[in-house]
């Protein structure tokens, strides 16, 4: 392949875009480990900021993890059957339902949160518990599980397999758990990873739904950006990135495997 000037120009452009994406992240990592960012790296590197962040903000990390896991479980419980139903029905009603399901993602998060808050805010118990945030997260992440699961279900020989199971005497529930679910494990896994990643980083809804007792990681981040010194905010961001980047790597690996399966 000949490398023309056009190729070089495009490569430089793409590298510049990449720099725009990466330089701020690297700066944030560095700032979180620098003793005094105002002076510069020459002031020495330290883990003190990370320790300080962990001491004051660790409850937010645990709450976010709990929320993410609970959200993934809830979305699986309601989303996998829904994906199955939507693929099976495939009529005007199911397409309208799919549309409805994607709407909370398309709408500004602030508007959805406001709607939830104004409708259910008067139930004090519910309002002040973390379940209130969970509802918002489930609404927001549901399509991100249903979409990949539907994609996997659509391309497999599920109707044939199910028919075989039915002719051998398996009821609908048994068919669902022993034929449908095992056959779309990859789609479910990809969806769950996406849901956990999104739930860990969700801010637009969470900021309106949280109370001082239920602060999630992104809410804590916003707090620290507004009030803490730059090093603390950076160290906090570093902790967040450490949580989210392994998830993203796993997600990329799985979606690569899924698209390979599609081509086969």
């Amino acid at each position, binding site marked *: 392949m000949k490398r023309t000037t056009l190729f070089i120009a495009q490569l430089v*452009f793409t590298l510049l875009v990449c720099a725009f*994406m990466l330089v701020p992240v690297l700066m944030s990592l560095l700032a979180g480990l620098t003793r005094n960012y105002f002076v510069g790296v020459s002031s020495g590197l330290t883990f003190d900021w990370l320790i300080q962040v962990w001491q004051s903000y660790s409850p937010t990390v645990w709450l976010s993890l709990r929320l993410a896991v609970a959200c993934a479980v809830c979305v699986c419980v309601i989303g996998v059957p829904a994906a199955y139903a939507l693929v099976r029905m495939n009529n005007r009603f199911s397409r309208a339902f799919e549309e409805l399901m994607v709407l909370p993602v398309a709408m500004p998060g602030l508007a959805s949160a406001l709607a939830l808050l104004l409708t259910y805010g008067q139930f004090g118990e519910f309002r002040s518990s973390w379940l209130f945030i969970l509802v918002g997260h489930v609404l927001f992440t549901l399509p991100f599980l249903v979409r990949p699961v539907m994609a996997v279900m659509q391309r497999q020989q599920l109707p044939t397999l199910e028919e075989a199971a039915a002719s051998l005497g398996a009821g609908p529930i048994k068919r669902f758990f022993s034929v449908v679910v095992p056959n779309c494990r990859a789609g479910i896994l990809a969806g769950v990873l996406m849901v956990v990643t999104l739930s860990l980083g969700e801010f637009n809804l969470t900021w309106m739904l949280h109370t001082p007792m239920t602060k999630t990681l992104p809410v804590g981040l916003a707090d620290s950006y507004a009030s803490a010194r730059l090093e603390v905010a950076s160290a906090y961001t570093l902790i967040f990135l450490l949580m989210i980047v392994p998830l993203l790597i796993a997600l990329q690996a799985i979606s690569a495997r899924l698209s390979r399966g599609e081509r086969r």
Partner: protein
Amino acid sequence: MTTVPLNVQDVSSRHDVLQRLRPTAAWALAPAAAVLLAFWLLPLAHLIVLGGQGREGSDSGYWQVLSSAQYLGSLVQTCLLAALVTLAALLVGGISGVFLARQQFFGRSALVALLTFPLAFPGVVVGFLVILLAGRQGLFASLGLGLAGERWIFAYSLTGLFIGYLYFSIPRVILTVMAACESLDRSLEEAAHSLGAGHWRVVCDVIVPGLAPALVSCGAICFATSMGAFGTAFTLGTRLNVTPVAIYNVFTNYANFTVAAALSVILGAVTWAVLLLARRVAKQSGTVL
């Protein structure tokens, strides 16, 4: 010709299978339907009704928004900013996306992986990254100090917001364009080249029209995300006059629920209308959410 009846039979038996499996399938939709009804449709209906009510005999929330220069100004400003970000992201992401999809070179997959990570960064983090780039102690501040003797600070303005929105829009465009490029027919480009068309002509007459459906639907999603991106604006400062911040201020500072509800409904309606319009224009979907 003998295969035709066989095919028909095959299709009809498949149809039978689906028919027999269908009644149970509808039940599986019930939990999701219940959750969406209780926590999405009901609150949304409540919000729409609330926006129409007036507080203490004043006009309805919608009228208060539509007759106020401040709220209308923030809506227009938000739309313009989102449109500008969408165009810029499509241009930058389009160039890089086509390049990454077409060329094979060392380190390509690593580059793609790095470029797509920021897709999952929340808005608050993106806001903070903009502050690190262009804030008071940011990269551009020290760069400006070294080059021109003054600190270049533009993080806390609409420029900063533009950079932040661009930051989370570019990865989405790159991913969509790369996926769309794979389904593009390369022989068309080769034909155009062999007929004597230059690079520019091929880009304008072959590649861009081929990518148009993907670009339109992805652009609509970028627009929608930029319209509702509260996190970035919140981190960069609550003085910015964009609608999500305006909703937040009206709700928390003035506790004016009707105007907050009306603003939310109008913002949501504009966003939804753009998404719907894009769907009409580009019939095919397949974008990254």
